[in-house]
């Protein structure tokens, strides 16, 4: 091997320059503070203020009224339905999301970019429209509605319809979170596991899943928050049968329309707390497993 140029460098630190250079990427102070000011006041106005107002309104008539709102039969039914829908939709989307992300990230096949576009569809389409699609499909006048009715299967204006609409709307959250992560990680870890004699399942549970677990959890959190909070699509397919097909967001709307502000905001505060808990859990995870998260998400 030939070293092209040999030169000796002085490796000692050069003496500090007498004056302070501003880095070329640093803007003047007033620009910095203006930008921070705009960002913070926008956040305060659009996000923090409404959130605070939700709780202020909920407690306006005192804690007693607040807690009474949750003893209402219909409110309990709405909360239960919301939990049920999330309990079905989130695990299903967990499986679909992992499968879709796996397919897209680890295989080459014809029509892949079309599949990616399709996964994004629920993000780009208005939830009301996706609700309508289900009505068109399963409704009484719909494509397979008559067949469903003759077999006594209720979908529209019943729980299955709400679950379907929720799954549709929340589908992208987990897949979208996992696709870049899995693409980034490539397939060599899996190849290594296989070459060491692991079966496909062992490879998935011992190598792939641990590699994506934090991304997956993140996706599940977002998916869950949206599943519980979804309004538009669910509103179309639910039929608003009180105590039967009302989820929490629908229940809030009904209370609000009945001028029961305290009740509406009380239930709304539950959803807001769900959002806060989601945020806190996410932050704690990032703080607690920051190293591993950084290791898992190598970007």
């Amino acid at each position, binding site marked *: 091997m030939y070293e092209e140029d040999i030169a000796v460098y002085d490796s000692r630190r050069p003496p500090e320059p007498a004056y302070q250079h501003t880095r070329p990427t640093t803007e003047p102070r007033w620009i910095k503070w203006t930008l921070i000011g705009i960002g913070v006041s926008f956040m305060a106005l659009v996000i923090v203020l409404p959130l605070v107002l939700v709780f202020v309104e909920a407690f306006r008539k005192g804690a007693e009224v607040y807690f009474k709102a949750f003893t209402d039969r219909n409110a309990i039914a709405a909360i239960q339905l919301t939990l049920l829908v999330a309990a079905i939709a989130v695990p299903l989307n967990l499986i679909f999301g992992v499968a879709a992300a796996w397919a897209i990230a680890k295989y080459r096949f014809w029509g892949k970019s079309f599949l990616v576009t399709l996964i994004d569809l629920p993000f780009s389409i208005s939830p009301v429209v996706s609700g309508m699609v289900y009505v068109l499909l399963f409704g009484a006048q719909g494509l397979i509605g008559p067949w469903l009715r003759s077999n006594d299967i209720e979908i529209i204006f019943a729980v299955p319809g709400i679950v379907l609409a929720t799954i549709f709307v929340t589908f992208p959250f987990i897949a979208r979170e996992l696709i870049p992560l899995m693409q980034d990680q490539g397939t*060599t870890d899996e190849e*290594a596991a296989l070459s*060491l004699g692991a079966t496909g399942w062992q490879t998935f549970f011992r190598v792939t899943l641990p590699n994506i677990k934090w991304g997956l959890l993140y996706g599940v959190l977002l998916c869950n928050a949206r599943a519980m909070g979804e309004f538009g699509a669910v509103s179309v397919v639910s039929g608003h049968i009180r105590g039967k097909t009302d989820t929490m967001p629908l229940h809030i709307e009904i209370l609000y329309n009945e001028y029961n502000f305290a009740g509406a905001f009380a239930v709304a505060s539950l959803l807001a707390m769900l959002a806060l808990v989601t945020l806190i859990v996410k932050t704690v995870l990032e703080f607690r497993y920051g190293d591993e998260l950084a290791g898992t998400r190598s970007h």
Partner: protein
Amino acid sequence: MDIRVENVLKEFSRYPALDDVSLEIKSGELIALLGPSGSGKTTLLRLIAGLERPTAGRIFFGDEDASSKSVQQRNVGFVFQAYALFRNMTVLENISFGLKVRPRATRPPRAEIKKRAMELLDLVQLSGLDARYPQQLSGGQRQRVALARALAIEPRVLLLDEPFGALDAQVRKELRKWLREIHDKTGHTTVFVTHDQEEALELADRLVVMSQGKIEQVGSPDTVYDTPNSPFVFGFIGESSRLPVEIDNGELWVGGRAIGLTSGETPKGNALLYFRPHDVELVPEGAALAGVVVASRRVGGTRRVELEIGGNPERVEIDLPFDHPAGEKTRIAFKPKRWRLFPTA
């Protein structure tokens, strides 16, 4: 374990990555697959491992046709270019992985697995780092863990993809020597891929030089270096200079002057003369290669001189000791001590 690759063809979307490649590897050999990027060397390694399926052709492990076997069934130790250590597992867990995933019937007891992993950790000189995670190791240490992990499954053959590619020069040299020691100690049939000819020449028992999906030459490092069988191999392995010449009357001519070299078997016509820059002797002017010095630079202990010969646009390089008086001259005459001719059409 002998390995035999028979007429293997591998196409990626119609583009042949390997074109009718045959190769025999003897048990216990340390073989280097050497070639520029895109030569198909990694593809060949992955085909042997079972990570790719050949489009046509067969691969034998001993007398057993392994072509249709999966990578798990082939029981090979594969060391990946970027090591592919499992980042959620400690060093010890990484090394034990291959044993832990075995079916219950062939899985050693827990204590035995741990003992074997510790022994391997000792073999790769990483004792004491068993509880670390891969992120906490240096590149060279990761490389060693990857090797220990591959050895843990008692593979029939050890395959390494650019094992030292991501390491800096110092560590690379150390690990090279160390890999040779491990190979001699364990006696595994070992195949490694590299684009670094120095690495291949130093480490391997035999080299397989590849280019554009074909094997150009197979032989010991000395054979390949001393008697390259094609212009490609001559140019790729070691330093080389080349010069277009004419052959007539059993002699070599450049620009109408005989250069005092005989053509041997090579037929009359145009040819390319290849020689090593360091393998030359300076001679007085006369029937020799004489050229004008156009550039000269000091490279470590030698001086590399670029010469323009007979108005030929192609320059040749020769090496002189850095303090050789000829290095000051503007005109130098020399003869290659050893050379090869490749006829051109």
